[in-house]
Structure formats: structure tokens, C-alpha cells
């Protein structure tokens, strides 16, 4: 890659980050949720934060996991424990921007929209917001060290069970 990196580092990096995010999103939308935790590092932090709190500087997140184990537990609960309306997501992501890289940690930001379809077959705007990510390389693979989803749609329709 050296050449490419030399000639257009940012471009390349944006490409890579997009590849990561695209794979992440497809994994959720294709309902391969068991693979979802693998996009994170073992000591990851995953937070889904209402913009209402983010703007007010309040710490409450509706989902807050500080280990890959907790991510797995979320999925096991979704599969075996929780009661909610069957549904599927469709993510549209856009304008991924690499904000910087320091000590091997890449900071990136991406807009997303999640469109939810319930069994009635209607699709609704369920959740829009931005990903604020810290990404690292683990054996050559990019992984989320921290992923914060700050969502605009702080009036959640009924409930949230599937990760964003």
C-alpha cells in the first residue's frame, strides 16, 4: 500500500474507515448480530446517547457497554430473553470524516439514519444521528475502541433493542 498511502493518505484512510463502517452496518441490517461484537476491541466502550443529554453535558446513555462481553450479552438477551416487536433496520450512512489520528487511534465521525420496518411492512425514520468513533488496528484489522452514537431522535418510538 505504501505508494497509495504516500500519494493520498487521507483518501486511503477514509476508504478504510468507510469499509469498516459499511461492514458494521451491513452486519446489523443483515441480522448477523452474533458477529456485531467482533467489530469492537475487548475493552471497548459503546454508548448510545440522546442528543438531549449530549448537548446538556449529561452522562446518561440508553445503552452503555464497557466490554465486548456486555455487547455479547446484549445480543444474547435480544435473541433469547427480550420481548419486543419483530422488526428490521436499514442503515444509510454518509459523510464519514477522519478527524485525526494519534497514538494509533483514529478519530472519525459519520452521519447515519436508521429506517425501521415492523411486521406491518411500513418503513419509518427510526433514529438519525452521528457516530463518533475511536478506531484502532488489531492484527491489521480496524476495530472500534470506542463508539458513541449521538442520536437526534431522542423521542424513541416505543423502545430500542437492536444496536444502532
Amino acid at each position, binding site marked *: 500500500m505504501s505508494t497509495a498511502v504516500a500519494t493520498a493518505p487521507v483518501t486511503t484512510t477514509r476508504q478504510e474507515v468507510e469499509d469498516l463502517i459499511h461492514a458494521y452496518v451491513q452486519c446489523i441490517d443483515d441480522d448477523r448480530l452474533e458477529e456485531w461484537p467482533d467489530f469492537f476491541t475487548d475493552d471497548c466502550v459503546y454508548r448510545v446517547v*440522546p442528543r438531549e443529554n449530549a448537548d446538556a453535558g449529561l452522562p446518561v446513555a440508553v445503552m452503555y457497554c464497557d466490554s465486548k462481553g456486555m455487547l455479547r450479552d446484549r445480543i444474547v438477551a435480544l435473541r433469547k430473553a427480550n*420481548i419486543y416487536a419483530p422488526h428490521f433496520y436499514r442503515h444509510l450512512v454518509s459523510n464519514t470524516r477522519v478527524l485525526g489520528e494519534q497514538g494509533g487511534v483514529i478519530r472519525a465521525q459519520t452521519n447515519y439514519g436508521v429506517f425501521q420496518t415492523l411486521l406491518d411492512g411500513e418503513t419509518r425514520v427510526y433514529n438519525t444521528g452521528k457516530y463518533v468513533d475511536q478506531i484502532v488496528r488489531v492484527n491489521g484489522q480496524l476495530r472500534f475502541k470506542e463508539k458513541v452514537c449521538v442520536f437526534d431522535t431522542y423521542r424513541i418510538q416505543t*423502545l430500542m433493542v437492536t444496536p444502532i
Partner: protein
Amino acid sequence: MDARVKRTGGLIWPEEGVSSAVPYGVFTEQAVYDEEQARIYRGPTWNFIGLAAEVPNPGDFKTTYVGDTPVVMTRDDTGAIHAWVNRCAHRGALVCRELRGNNAAGTYTCVYHQWSFDAAGDLVGVPFRRGLGGKGGYPADFDLKAHGLRKLRVEDYHGVVFATFDANMPGVQDYLGAGGAMDAHLQRIFKDREIEVIGHARQYIPSNWKFYAENTKDPYHASLLHLFHMTFGLYRSSQVGGVKITNGWHTVLFSRSGTDSEAALADTKQSQLRTYQADTYTLDDPSLLRGRQGEWDDDVTLVIMSLMPSLVIQQIQNTLAVRQILPKGRDAFELVWTYFGYKTDDEELRNIRLKQINLIGPAGLISMEDGESSVICQQAVVRDQNDWSCIEMGGRDVQDADHLVTETTIRAFWDHYRALMGY
């Protein structure tokens, strides 16, 4: 049972005094909804409008609702809290248009014609009152005092703020039952404690608000809907716990983890329930459940206070929250969560509270299921307004219980509801 027709919505109710059945039309009829707004939310009730800690400083304000009427809660520079209907006395515009904020000036100016009101809702300024250059202006007999905002009575009870449209209400403590279980449990959480709001969350649930009222008063469902409660023993019908009813329809539901009686647990296991998988279901990272033990010396690990018509106060393990119930029509309500801790929290405890929100909130591994159960009830009762539900667990009467295998608290709710609505 006998039955008697009631006018509103043409509903047929069980005979007087029988609260173990309700016609489903009570969840679907517009006429019932409108009458609730008049007889309950604007009637002889105290409605939760916020925590005093949400408006800590003079000039702070917060917009909210009583029923579906927009109201504003303010703190004036003397520190007193006020509430008024958020509708300008001039030509009806919203006076306050943000969720919350601080109004240094202390006056609330309507954007439309800049009439301005003080924190108490009194009219203090009107542009061009005497006209301009001698022309126009208000009539000589125009009286500022006659054009204040519509005020509600307000009481700050241990930091929990209530408002009422009813001038003749007794105080909040009398309303929830002085010295009763509700009063005791509320004080247990709030009295002489400095609380700190740590965040909010909102759910919009396409269901009638009363399905959620039933849900929060329902010890029966908690073991049977919520696998996490049952499997991890956060709550189990087999635990030591009970329900207490005060002043008709306020209810307290409490339990202690790890106190399951052998007999009860044996019965539970026999029932072969989806939600009981204590032997097989485990967590990869149990830190979620590793709360701080004994934060209260009574070892109560779960309390749900349902303070009608619009407030739920909860302590579940170490999560503390108030839930405000805002009806949004006959088939929808909004649930507004406000989470808090104590100023005295150490960092670890604060983090525990934040982490346990994974259990209790819009994405709560337990509470998400209460939203869902409310929705599927609303979806199922589209017709058959005069079919009746069956609320007979634990008998058909209304009384406190020293166990959790009952719906007596729900019967209490309907009993009082019928009285208020004249059904």
C-alpha cells in the same frame, strides 16, 4: 356479574364496586379520553411536573405538560417555584418555547407581540400600551392584573414538584397519604438528600396511558414478562415483598432480592416458565448486575411507586429515576425518564447507576418489555369496546398484600378511576 351502561363512550361496566373487570372501550374512546383530561388531570389530583433539581437556580425554567396541557415550571429569584399554562393571555401563543433554560431577566416575553410575564405568570409589560405618538394603544381601563397567565397551584414535596388545577386540593402529603407507605417510600429516596439529575430519556408509545398505569401497578407480570427479573432474581414473585395502597389508587410495590422462600421458589420452578432459566442463562460480563449492596439499610432492592395519575418513582438495584406519563391522545402516551443520583455519590456508585440504565429505560433489558406489552394491548382492543378484561389474580378485592402474586393494585386503580370519572 350484573352490568350497567355508562353514557361516555357507551361503555358497559361491571356493577358498582366490582373492579376485577374493565370494558376495553376505556382504552379506545375519544370521549373517555377528553373526559379524563377534565375530571382527572385538571380535577382533584396532584400532577408531577418535575424535580426541583431540574430548576436549581433563580430564573431556571422547564416546559412540560399536565395531562396534555402545556405548562411551564419556573423558579423565581426568591427561589419559589411556580407553574402556569404555557399560553399567552393576549392571543394564545406559547410563551415559552424551549425544553428548559435559564431566564436571567426573570421575565418571559411572548415572541408574538412581546407581552411579558414574570416567573409567577403575572403580566408585567405590554408594548405600545399607551400607543405611539398619541395614537392607538390599549383602552384606559385595560388592567394588566386581569391578563396574567393561567396559574396552577404548586407544591415542592421533598424536591418532587407537583401542580394542580384544583384550588381546593389538600396538600401533596395528604394527597398521597400522610405517613402511609407511599409517603414513607418517597421520603426514603428524597428526604434530606441532595439529588443530581444525570440525564433524560423519552419513549413515545402508541398505547393508551392506562395500559401503562396497569403495568406499573402489576406485580403479576414482572416475573412472567421479564426474563432478567426472574432469571437473575432482580425481582421474583417468590421473593419477600408486597404491595401497599394509599388513598385509593397510589401504590407501592417492593421486593428484596435473594429472599425467595423455598416453597414459593419450588412452585415457580414447577411452572416451567419461559422467564425462569436460572440454571442455564448466564451473562458473559456480570458487571451489569454487580451493583452496590445495602445502599439502603432495609435491603429493599426494588421499589416501584405509582403516584397517580402521572408519576412513577423507581429504585431498582441502584438506579434511581422518575417517570412522567404524558397522555398524547386516546392511543398514545409519552414516557419521560429523568435519572438521578445523590450529590454524595462516589465515582464508582455513579458509574453503577449509569450502567444499570441498561436494565431500566427505553433500551432497558427489563423495562423495554413494558413498552411492548402496552403496545400489543392497544393493538388488540381495536373493537369489542364492551368486552371485559379479567383482573382476578389474588382475588377480586382491594387490599394491601404481603406477597407479589396479585393484581389487587390494578383493581385499586380502576376503583378510584371509576369514582373520579363518575362511572
